[in-house]
C-alpha cells in the first residue's frame, strides 16, 4: 500500500468515526421529534415505522389538554423575567467591579466559582421554608427570584470579562463631557458588550426554562412550569408517548434555536473559565 492511499484511508476512517458519533448524538433527538409527529398508532409500533405522513395531532391534543397553555406561559414569563433581571443586575455589578477597581476582587472571583457549584437540590428546603414565610411560595415571582440569583455569579463572570476589554479612554472622555456614571454605563458600555450580554442572557434563559427541582417544590398546579408539567404526564397517563414527546419537543425548542443561531456564544459560555489560564 502506498503512503498516499494509506493516508486517504485514515482520513476516511476518521470521518466515519465522526459521523458515527454524530448519529449517536442526534438519534435520540430525531426519535423524539419524529415520534411527536407520528399518527397515534405508529407512535409505539414495533418494528418502528420509519416512513409516515407527519401529523400535528399530538400537538393539537396537547394544546387543548388541561392547562398546557397556562404552563407554557408560566415558563415563558419565568424564563424572560429571570433573564432580564439577572442580566441587568449582573451587568450593573460587573460595571461596579471593573470600573471602580473594587477591592477584594479576588474574593469575588473565588466567590463566584463557589456560588456556581451550589446545586438546586441544596437550596430547595431552605428556600421552600423562606418563601413560605415571605409569602412567595407558589408564585412565579418567587421562582424568578431564585433563578436570578442562581445565574448571577456566571453572568457577572462573563460580563466582567467583556467589560475589561472596553477601552477606558472611552469612559474617561464621556466623563469629561459631563455624563453621569449611569449614562456612561447604559449608553456607552452596554452597547459595546452586547455579545457578552447575549451569552449571559442565553444561559440564564436556559437555566430558568429547563430547571426542574426548584420549580417542582416552589410552585403549585397554577404556577408550575413546563418541565414539571411534562413530568406529571409520565405517571398520570402512562404511555401517551405522542403528547409527551410533543411537549418535550416544545421544551427543547429554545435549545434548538439557540444552538443554530448562536453556537459560538454557547461554546464560549460553556468553556468559559475552563480553557483560559
Amino acid at each position, binding site marked *: 500500500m502506498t503512503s498516499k492511499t494509506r493516508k486517504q484511508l485514515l482520513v476516511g476512517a476518521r*470521518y466515519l*468515526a*465522526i459521523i458515527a*458519533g454524530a448519529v*449517536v*448524538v442526534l438519534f*435520540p*433527538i430525531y*426519535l*423524539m421529534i419524529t*415520534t411527536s409527529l407520528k399518527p397515534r398508532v405508529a407512535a*409505539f*409500533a*414495533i418494528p*418502528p415505522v420509519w416512513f409516515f405522513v407527519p401529523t400535528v395531532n399530538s400537538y393539537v391534543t396537547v394544546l387543548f389538554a388541561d392547562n398546557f397553555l397556562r404552563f407554557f406561559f408560566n415558563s415563558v414569563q419565568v424564563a424572560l423575567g429571570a433573564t432580564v433581571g439577572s442580566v441587568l443586575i*449582573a451587568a450593573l*455589578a460587573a*460595571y*461596579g*467591579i471593573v470600573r*471602580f477597581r*473594587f477591592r477584594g476582587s*479576588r474574593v469575588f472571583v473565588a466567590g463566584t*466559582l*463557589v456560588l456556581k457549584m*451550589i*446545586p*438546586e*437540590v*441544596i*437550596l430547595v*428546603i*431552605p*428556600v421552600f*421554608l423562606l418563601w413560605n414565610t415571605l409569602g412567595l411560595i407558589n408564585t412565579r415571582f418567587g421562582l424568578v*427570584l431564585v433563578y436570578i*440569583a*442562581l445565574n448571577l*455569579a456566571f453572568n457577572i463572570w462573563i460580563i466582567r470579562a467583556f467589560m475589561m476589554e472596553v477601552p477606558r479612554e472611552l469612559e474617561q472622555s464621556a466623563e469629561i463631557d459631563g455624563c453621569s*456614571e449611569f449614562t456612561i454605563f447604559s449608553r456607552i458600555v452596554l452597547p459595546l458588550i452586547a455579545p457578552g450580554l447575549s451569552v449571559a442572557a442565553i444561559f440564564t434563559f*436556559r437555566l430558568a426554562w*429547563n430547571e*426542574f*427541582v426548584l420549580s417542582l417544590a416552589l410552585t403549585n398546579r397554577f404556577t408550575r412550569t413546563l*418541565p414539571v408539567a*411534562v*413530568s406529571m404526564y*409520565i405517571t398520570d397517563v402512562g404511555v401517551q408517548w405522542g403528547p*409527551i414527546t410533543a411537549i*418535550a419537543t416544545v*421544551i*427543547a425548542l429554545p*435549545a434548538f434555536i*439557540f444552538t443554530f443561531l448562536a*453556537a459560538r456564544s454557547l*461554546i464560549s459560555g*460553556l*468553556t468559559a473559565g*475552563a480553557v*483560559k489560564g
Partner: protein
Amino acid sequence: MNTALRKTVTPWLFTLPAIACILVILVFPVLSGVRLSFFEYAMRDFAVGRDPVFIGLDNFRILFGSANFRTSIQVTLVFVSSVVIFELLLGLVLALLMEGGIKGLRLFRTLFILPIMIAPVVVGLIWRFMYHPSFGILNYFLLRLGLEPIPWLHSTEWALRSVIIADIWQWTPFVFLILLAGLQGVSRDLIEAGIMDGCSYLQNLFFVKLPAIASIIAVAAILRLIDAFRSLVVIYVMTYGGPGVSTEVLSLHLYKTAFMAQRLGRASAIAVILLAILLLLSSVLVVRTLRAERK
C-alpha cells in the same frame, strides 16, 4: 452630594443589587440549611408552626447508620466515577478525531451542543422512551441483531448502567468541546517540531499534545465531577431512584428524604454532606483560577 461621598457610594450602588440577591437567596438559605441539619424538623412540624428541636449530630449519626444512605453513597460513587471516566475518554477521542483541518467541523461542533442545551427532563424522557421494555427502540435493535432484550430500567443489575449511559450521551459533548478548544490552543510549532524529529502519531500524542493539555483535562474532570455529584433530574425522570434504591444517588436521596419522607432536618444533613463534597472539588478550581488571575 459632594464628590468624595459620591466616589465612595457609586460603586456600591452598582454592586448592591447583586450582593443583596446573593446574600438573601443563596448565602442565607445555604447557611440556614446547615443550621437545620442539627435539628429534628419534619414537614408536619413546619405545617403546624412547631419549632425545630436541637439534636446535635444525631441526624448525621442516623444517616451513617442507615443502610439506604450508605447504598446511596455507593451508588453515587459508582455513577460519578463511571460517567467521568467514560466521558473523558470518549471526549478526548472525539476531540482528537476532529482536531485540525476537518471539513464541516463547525457543523459537527454545533450538533454536539444539542444534548447539553436540552432540558434534563427531556433527556430523561427520551431515554425512558428508548429504554422501554416492550416498545423501546433499543431492545428492538438488540432483537434485530439476534441478541437478548435487556431490562434496561427494570432490573437492579441494569438500571444504574442505563442511567450512566444516558449521562454519557448528554455530557461527553461538553468534555469534547473543552478538550477541542484546548487542543486547538496547542502550539503548531510544537507539533511540527515533533513530526520533524520523526515522532509517530502516538509519540506526538503522549509526549507533546497530552502534556500540553493536561491542566485542561484536569479542569474538565473537576467540572464533570461537580456536575455528576449534582445530577438528579434525569435519574428522577428515568427511574425515580429505582428499582429499589439501585439508582438513588445522593441528591435524589436528599430530595426524597425532604419531600417524600418529609424529614427536613435529616435531609439538610444530607445537603451538608453533598455541599462538603462539592466545596472540596470546587476549591481546586478556585485555587487554580486565582493563580491564573494573578498573572
